[in-house]
């Protein structure tokens, strides 16, 4: 899992750099913006993925209190997002 997060970090940086460079080389093209969007989305889902991974880990270890805390945080984040878009 650590390797996966390290890979997503490098991939995010690569996509953002590629997006910025191509935006200079190909003005008016939609490609650079799309590359940056993918990079930013990868960046944004990483913290939530970490919480999900922690929650699953706690469940496997039988640490119910920590699993409950992480599940509650995920629900709050989801609820906040849902309420804010309404």
């Amino acid at each position: 899992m650590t390797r996966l997060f390290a890979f997503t970090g490098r991939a995010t940086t690569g996509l953002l750099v590629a997006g910025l460079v191509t935006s200079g080389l190909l003005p008016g093209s939609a490609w650079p913006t799309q590359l940056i969007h993918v990079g930013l989305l990868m960046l944004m889902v990483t913290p939530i993925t970490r919480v999900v991974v922690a929650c699953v880990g706690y469940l496997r270890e039988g640490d119910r209190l920590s699993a409950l805390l992480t599940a509650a945080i995920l629900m709050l984040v989801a609820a906040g997002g849902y309420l804010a878009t309404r």
Partner: protein
Amino acid sequence: MLTTVSFSLMAMAALGGVVAGSLGGMLGLGGGVFLVPLLVQGLGVPMPQAVAVSLTTVIATSNAVSGAAGSRPLINLRMGFMLELITAAGGLLGGVAATLLPQRTLMITFSVVMTLMSVITFLRRDHQNALPEDADIGPWGGRYTDEQTGRLVVYRLDRLPVAVGTSFVAGTLSTLLGLGGGVIKVPVLNAWCGIPMRVASTTSAFMIGVTATSGALIYFGRGLLLPTLAAAAVLGVRVGSMLGLRLARIWPPRRLKVMLAVVLVLVAAVMIARLPQ
């Protein structure tokens, strides 16, 4: 709203990202308190777009700090999740209180509290939050090996009501003033609750990313995130956080606490400077 981003604007955002990332790596702060005024007042970026970029850099800081090999043993996930839950509850109250309290009063109160915290952090700069190796760490404590000394550091979360109350207030103020909670939680956890500076800052850095994510996704979904500006700022954060993490590893906790005290005073000053007329 801004639709095109010049090269100089991207360069300034990247520099702001370097500062925010350094603060995150060293002290567990998101850096939004500096980045938002820089973008809005310094570079003329409209507030919603500046907040969107700032939230993205907070996530980048959090990812960089919590993904670094040296940081992982320092992150106390259990304590972080517990306090994050309280912070989120405080955030809900902040959403309600935002319509009832004058922002000017809040900002003045916040600045006074920050200044007091700065003084306390400075006065307690030599205080060590380490217990004997066989000490009971309780449900929220932890252990890690200090990279500088090679010794095992054992700690416990003391004064739980203070930690819980502070997290609640941090959540409320985060919503009311658009700040990350790290600037409030890190000094309190370190000065009063027995948490070592490095644990408080790395755990805070991890959690601010979770807090910022839902907000950032909303701004992104509404098309308020300027892609090239955010990309430049995030790349700046990557550079800054590497620098901040390196400094946090080689600097003694005493120096980090003095740095934190200075940053808190600066935050208070920025807040006073931004007071609405």
